[in-house]
């Protein structure tokens, strides 16, 4: 006699397994964040955030790395935002499918899939050596800019597409040219969406290691110019953890990193959500 499981029972079993696996995924995420916080929050203090790094990171704080991360990221955003937004505007407003659209889209998709170590190799040979910029904030910032361009293109593209067509028609009917319409109607309306892309780009830049360690270097000094070598938070954390310099400092640095990442993702999510709720 064969025992057959009915479709209803089957559905219940399948549902339970799917639910369990989804819960495991969520638990893993909360576990990673919780574990780092549990061991790191106690080490955090104003002094840790504002003190120089001493004895390779065994003592002192992470001020040089905070400044380094800040400057490298700002530099990357300043370069990547006009390129990313400009590309997206062109894609949505000026091309209607066709070969050019496909080439640009292909470039953005491919660039998005390139792993960070390849950006590191490229930045090292091109910015650091060929353009002779050395291990510096500029080299690191330019490398990260190339890396986050696709993020900004894709998010901006979605935002611009979401602007209702009637907005553009009204602008044209009032005698506005194409450029005026883009500058005065399309871009302001899609601004929250564009900001989301930029903020997600900031998140990627802050968390990045492989692409900056060979371009911005790992100097622990306070950066004094755009040509100073610097060690970003992620790189500092990597060196602390891998070389076993100080576990308490590693946990504390990781906590700062994760707080920044959570903040960035939260802001991006809220912005995008409000924007999409308005126009979709």
């Amino acid at each position, binding site marked *: 006699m064969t025992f057959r499981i009915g479709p209803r029972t089957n559905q219940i079993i399948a549902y339970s397994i799917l*639910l369990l696996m989804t819960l495991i995924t*969520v638990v893993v995420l909360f576990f*990673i964040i919780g574990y780092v916080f549990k061991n790191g929050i106690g080490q955090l203090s104003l002094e840790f955030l504002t003190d120089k790094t001493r004895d390779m990171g065994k003592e002192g704080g992470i001020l040089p790395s905070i400044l380094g991360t800040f400057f490298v990221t700002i530099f990357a955003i300043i370069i990547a935002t006009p390129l990313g937004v400009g590309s997206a505007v062109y894609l949505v407003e000026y091309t209607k499918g066709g070969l050019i659209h496909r080439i640009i889209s292909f470039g953005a998709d*491919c660039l998005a899939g*390139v792993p960070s170590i390849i950006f590191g*190799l490229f930045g090292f040979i091109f910015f650091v050596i060929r353009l002779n910029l050395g291990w510096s904030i500029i080299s690191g910032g330019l490398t990260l800019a190339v890396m986050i*361009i696709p993020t900004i293109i894709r998010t901006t593209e979605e935002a611009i597409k979401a602007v209702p067509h009637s907005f553009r028609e009204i602008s044209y009917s009032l005698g506005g040219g194409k450029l005026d319409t883009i500058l005065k109607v399309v871009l302001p309306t899609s601004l929250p969406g564009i900001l989301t892309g930029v903020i997600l780009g900031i998140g990627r830049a802050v968390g990045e290691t492989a692409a900056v360690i060979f371009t911005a270097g790992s100097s622990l000094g306070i950066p004094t110019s755009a040509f100073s070598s610097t060690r970003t938070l992620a790189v500092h*954390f990597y060196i602390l*953890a891998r070389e076993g310099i100080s576990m308490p400092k590693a946990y504390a640095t990781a906590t700062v990193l994760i707080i920044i990442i959570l903040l960035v993702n939260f802001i991006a999510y809220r912005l995008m959500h409000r924007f999409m709720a308005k126009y979709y």
Partner: protein
Amino acid sequence: MKDKIAEKLLLFIAFSAILFLLLITFFIFQQGIPLIFKVGLSNFFSTHWAPTRGNFGILSMIIGSLMVTAGALVVGIPFGLACAIFLAEFSSPPIQKTLKPIIELLAGIPSVVYGFIGIVILVPFIREHFGGPGFSVLAASIILGIMILPTIVSISYDALLAVPNTYREGSYAVGATKWQTVVMLLLPAARSGIVAGIILGMGRAIGETMAVIMIAGNALKIPHSMLDSVRTLTSTLALELGYATGDHRAALFACGSFLFLIIILLNIIAIKITGRK
């Protein structure tokens, strides 16, 4: 007039992504490919890597990369698909709205943090319960599997949502359960998107560097079991680029060229499959 200039300028800017892609290709190949011709393919694809003594074989690293990638897929595909199906078909809008950003947050966590969690939790756990050094193919596979989850989830989820509702309605109308509908109709209909998501996840796993360096052990030999230490293409690049000079550096770029080719190939396959409009 103003509009014409703006259009030209924007066209120029719009080519920046493809321009950078070409620049990356050019500079990495220019640094690496000559060495492959100089030493020959048999040297380059051997298992003997001693770049300061003229041996540039990357085969054991290729095998290492393939092993951890396969391992990552074994972990990532079932969990990724489960999350995508659960989100798209079995949860109400408020649950979707809460769960999706949470799973996407996994993509935002820096790879060094994953590597660190690997060092402090996974590696000791494997060492105590399964034996071996702990720094292993297994540790790298599990961590990479978690890291590629968001890629697989978000692309498969979009593919499932893109299946027209008439499929579901028709299926329920003939008395099929939700699960039967998923297995018999929705998964086959969303197949191309799901495959694309898996391929992109695979690309992420092959290309991941920092997390792998921290937990794979990096020993230069072909691993014989899941508990052996392993060295991937990416870890070799990151471990040696800092001090390599001359032919050694060129060999790293040759290794990078090979990695880059694989990634671009995977990207092209994924793009072709989804057939972007």
